[in-house]
């Protein structure tokens, strides 16, 4: 059967995906343009960061080490620790919240559901559209890195960058699925945005400070940000365990969303 809900959702967001991708390309171009001066100042820049209080440093580098001597290290700190996750999460949480709760908020849910498409299929098709959107953004990010890096003569590790955007995409999809789950369970857009955003902030801090704060260390591994870059994918590539944990979380969230959405009143 034709996935009409997915195609419609993808079609609706085609323009915004182009804009998001262009913004990412521009952001990455900026980082790449700055690289020569960072590389030039080399050790002094690293020293500046090294002199920061440890907790502060951990927070902005997502708990990772700081290494400004290579493009991979630079991109890891500047792009992938903070900016890129924010962009992907804003997109994914917004899309996940509007998937079900947004249709309810705009009162379009009646016309959407009173067809021969089941509620479960609506959830899954909306999820597919979200995955598609995140995949577009991740790919745009990777392509920008590779192409712009080549143009500027910056040595971006192609395979590790690909692994990093895959992990980043999974992070986005996870939080998007959480937003979709809350929307499917409650029908409330505000809550579907706010709760995942708060959890993202909390789990970010747990992962970032987990390297320094003793009691956070054991729970650090449960943070989606730990699955994302706890293993430093810009240097070590894809981590199958982390991928498996992310995918399992996503599957559980989507199954939960289907289950919740099938048993409640809509549009009340």
């Amino acid at each position: 059967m034709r996935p009409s809900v997915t195609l419609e959702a993808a079609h609706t967001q085609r323009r915004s995906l182009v804009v998001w991708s262009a913004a990412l390309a521009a952001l990455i171009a900026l980082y790449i343009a700055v690289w020569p001066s960072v590389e030039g100042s080399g050790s002094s820049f690293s020293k500046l960061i090294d002199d920061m209080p440890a907790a502060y440093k951990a927070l902005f580098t997502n708990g990772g080490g700081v290494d400004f001597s290579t493009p991979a290290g630079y991109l890891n700190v500047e792009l992938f620790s903070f900016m890129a996750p924010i962009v992907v999460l804003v997109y994914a949480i917004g899309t996940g919240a509007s998937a079900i709760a947004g249709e309810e908020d705009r009162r379009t849910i009646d016309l959407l559901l009173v067809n021969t498409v089941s509620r479960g299929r609506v959830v899954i098709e909306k999820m597919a559209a979200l995955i598609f959107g995140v995949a577009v953004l991740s790919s745009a990010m990777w392509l920008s890195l590779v192409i712009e890096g080549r143009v500027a003569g910056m040595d971006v590790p192609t395979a590790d960058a690909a692994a990093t955007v895959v992990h980043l995409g999974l992070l986005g999809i996870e939080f998007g699925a959480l937003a979709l789950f809350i929307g499917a369970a409650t029908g409330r857009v505000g809550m579907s945005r706010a709760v995942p955003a708060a959890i993202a902030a909390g789990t970010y801090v747990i992962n970032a400070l987990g390297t320094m704060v003793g009691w956070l260390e054991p729970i650090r591994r449960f943070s989606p940000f730990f699955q994302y870059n706890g293993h430093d994918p810009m240097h070590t590539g894809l981590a199958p365990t982390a991928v498996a944990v992310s995918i399992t979380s996503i599957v559980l969230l989507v199954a939960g969303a289907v289950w919740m959405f099938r048993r409640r009143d809509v549009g009340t």
Partner: protein
Amino acid sequence: MSVVRLSGLSKRYGSHPALIDVDLEIDQGEVFGYLGPNGAGKTTTIRILLGLLRPTAGRAEVFGLDAWSEAVAVHARTGYVPGEPGLWERLTGEATITYLARLRDDLTQVGRARVIAERLDLDLRRRVGALSKGNKQKLVVVQAFMGDPELVVLDEPTTGLDPLMQQEFHALVRETTARGGTVLLSSHLLDDVQRTADRVGIIRDGRLVAVERLEELRAKAVHRISARFDGPFDPAAFAAIPGVGDISVGHGSVELRVPEGSLDAAVKTLARQRIVDVEITETDLEEMFLAYYGASTHAA
């Protein structure tokens, strides 16, 4: 055969009872007018029928299928105009009907939709967000009828439609029943349904208080007579008319109300005097209706 069957249907929102123990059957080929003030439970009933709300107690069946657990099978045979027509503002009319036709896995509905849109004088090329309230309502009506459904459920469908379009709308309703379809038409105005409905049900504060055939309701319709006479007349003769009420006698004039069934007697009594002026008006069905069922109703 009954297309819709509600038995002991109740719905609560928290502690607020929206629908209380409703029993109703709607037969195939019938137009059923569902009347009541805003907030009485019409929309709740309708949204239960479409599987959007789950009953707290009782059962709602459509085509013998459970409206909640077999909703998809019900939807395949049902058209629906929601009370609050939420449309995708960024789509054009054409894109909207194409999307809905795809969600029903039947693209042939698009052609039919174009024909209905033409009849309703609706331009499908325009973006929904740019349409007036009336045009949005037309689009919602188009999508409800475009699949030639066996059951059409309409929640306040004529809101925002001008009189000419209402005529076209009533024609669509009649065409549906002519091919054996069934229509459930809700409104807070009797006027909206009296042109097409075979039966009406009256809901108030969540309870279905009456179900009547429209013709029976009409027979109860009261006529107001006011007459002036040249010369003396006998007020007692008017008091003897069966069912008469509200007689007021003036100087050479009389005013009274009689039920439709007593019109003949009333006119013949009048004719015994020398008449200067006479006026007979049917009291609004609406008014009468409210007199019967709506006295204690506080419309929302």
